[in-house]
């Protein structure tokens, strides 16, 4: 276990260092590049490395075979960003004449507002936020213009409609991009009770005033909700999601007013705990420049000592990929625990138990199991 621990630590350091100081990448050895590419692939951060190197003009200074992998990631990202932007364009066309603006969330917001997280990562879907009572109207309009409700099983449909913060996804009959329409940023059942009305009031228009994005503090808080509550058991917390948060802190943090309003806003939305963790882990992994005042303001939002100690360890284990050749069993456990915690925060215990049982049943039936390599149509990937 000693060797595994040492290799895990070295590998994680290599990845974090590459993200924090891309200017040092040209001096990496080929062996380090090889490991970095593998870890970047696992965490889907190759595109981020490419974007950073390209921004500081060092792409030509790295080994060409490593550059090929970065270029490959970049090509996929460029393509997906094009699809996201175009889907937004078509949504506007389909919703022509609809009153009240469309609020873009997550990737769609970053891409359309050209915010730093948009460069260098894939966003597959378009996420929109609408007041709940106005969702039916746009669902209707979109379905008249060629979007279809995706076929999902009745359990999932009910799960969405009754409990969740979004409706089942829509997809255009010719294009593959999914649209998720949300009416709040947390499930109705969540222990974190956040009033969506506050978000609508504060949203900011983009250049095309039919489109809005969340106010800076709200956008960061939503990214944190996404990070901590929408993880999956295999990946655990996603480092790229925390990196989005770090990049937003950096971007909006250039204005002092952003920092001044952040903690009060988090309390108002009932999201002080996610903010506490977000600041803590962004600082720990990415050295995010966070003013001292903010750090002291948020101090009391954290959990008591044993829980904090536990979270510090679990998050580090779950969010960092480790060395691909030296799997670390504790990391797997941590990822599952954080997945359970996320669900715990999203729904009451009985419902959680039912939900997890149902998902486990599906897995045991092979519904979402592993794919068959030989039958796989490689072109569908």
């Amino acid at each position, binding site marked *: 276990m000693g060797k595994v621990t040492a290799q895990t630590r070295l590998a994680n350091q290599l990845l974090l260092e590459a993200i924090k100081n891309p200017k040092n990448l040209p001096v990496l050895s080929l062996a380090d590049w*090889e490991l970095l590419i593998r870890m970047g692939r696992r965490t889907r951060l190759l595109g981020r490395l490419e974007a950073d190197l390209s921004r500081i003009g060092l792409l030509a200074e790295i080994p060409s075979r490593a550059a*090929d*992998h970065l270029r*490959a990631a970049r*090509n996929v990202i460029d393509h997906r960003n094009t699809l996201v932007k175009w889907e937004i364009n078509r949504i506007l066309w389909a919703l022509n004449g609809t009153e009240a603006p469309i609020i873009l969330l997550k990737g769609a917001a970053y891409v359309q507002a050209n915010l730093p997280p948009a460069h260098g990562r894939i966003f597959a879907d378009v996420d929109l936020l609408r007041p709940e009572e106005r969702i039916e109207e746009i669902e209707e309009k979109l379905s008249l213009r060629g979007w279809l409700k995706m076929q999902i099983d009745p359990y999932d449909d009910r799960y969405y409609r009754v409990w969740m913060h979004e409706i089942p996804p829509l997809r255009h009959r010719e294009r593959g991009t999914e649209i998720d329409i949300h009416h709040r940023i947390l499930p109705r059942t969540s222990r974190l009770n956040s009033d969506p009305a506050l978000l609508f009031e504060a949203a900011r228009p983009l250049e095309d005033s039919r489109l809005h994005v969340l106010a800076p503090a709200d956008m960061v808080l939503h990214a944190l909700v996404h990070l901590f509550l929408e993880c999956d058991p295999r990946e655990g917390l996603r480092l790229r999601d925390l990196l989005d948060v770090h990049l937003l802190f950096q971007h909006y943090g250039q204005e002092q007013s952003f920092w001044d309003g952040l903690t009060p806003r988090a309390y108002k939305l009932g999201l002080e705990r996610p903010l506490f963790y977000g600041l803590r882990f962004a600082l720990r992994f990415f050295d995010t420049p966070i003013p001292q005042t903010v750090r002291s303001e948020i101090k009391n939002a954290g959990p008591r000592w044993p829980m904090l100690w536990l979270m510090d360890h679990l998050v580090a284990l779950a969010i960092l990929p480790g060395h691909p050749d030296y799997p670390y069993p504790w990391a797997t456990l941590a990822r599952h625990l954080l997945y359970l915690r996320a669900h715990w925060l999203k729904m009451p215990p009985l419902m959680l138990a039912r939900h997890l049982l149902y998902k486990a049943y599906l897995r045991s039936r092979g519904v979402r199991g592993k794919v068959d390599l*030989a039958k796989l149509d490689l072109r569908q990937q």
Partner: protein
Amino acid sequence: MRVGDLALRKFKSRLATEGLQVQFGPFVIRMRSDLASFASLAHQLYHHYPLASATAMTDFHVQITRPRWLRRWLRPQSLFTLDGQSPFAPYAVEHALPALEWGINWCIATRAHHLLMLHAAVVERDGQAIIFPAWPGHGKSTLCAALIHSGWRLLSDEFGLVHPEDGKLLPIPRLIPLKNESIDVIRRFRPGAIIGPSFFNTRKGTVAHVMPSEESIRRGHEPAEPRWLIFPRWAAEASLTLKPIPKSEAFLMVATNAFNYEVLDNTAFHLVTDMVQACDCYSFRYSNLDEAVTALNALTSSGHG
């Protein structure tokens, strides 16, 4: 140094420990396996492939091993993993080689987006290439196997790799998997062809692998110019026909069937239009391989197509 230059014992032990870095066209694959039966077979079929130098960067770290947990005791299995992660269901242990070959295809198809990847077999002579876009069941692999035993160099059987900077085709001479009756067709066509053992009852039926020539593998870094786009179709008893087809049709067949045409946006559009523009495009029906090879040789020697 080539795989075949290593003694089998050494090959096995390297495979079971730190792994072997094998060069497949532009990619370096580090493969590891603890399956003795797989090792012997791989040692034969990968005989001509170059081992990458110890300092070369590996593109994909793959393993074909016994699954660690319970099921290995019930029925011996082999599991393909990339970087320790397995997206796939395990295979019967005796199907380890086809599973590894498919797994490597999957790594390339889902990740090598710095290149345009057509789904096609490609053969070359005098620097000029024939591209045979794949259509399921139309027998491109059979035709390709026949041509590489008739004076053509194998560029690839599965991936038509197009270099975006100059539109040239990059070689990736892998084993050619023949299915079902094609295996005997090629054995009869060239009794000297080296074909691996038949794997029965795989999820694609019976599969056996044709070894590319030593020369094809040695020249695995020499690109070729696209010159002919030929859409082959084998049909029993069909008389041989070779008909020019409209370029627009050729474009659509190539683009819709490529692995990553969509991903490469504008670049892919221009690469494929340039390729179709530069190529003579034909549909080709045949039943007899000797006639087919003769017809293609005649077409490609006539200078103007």
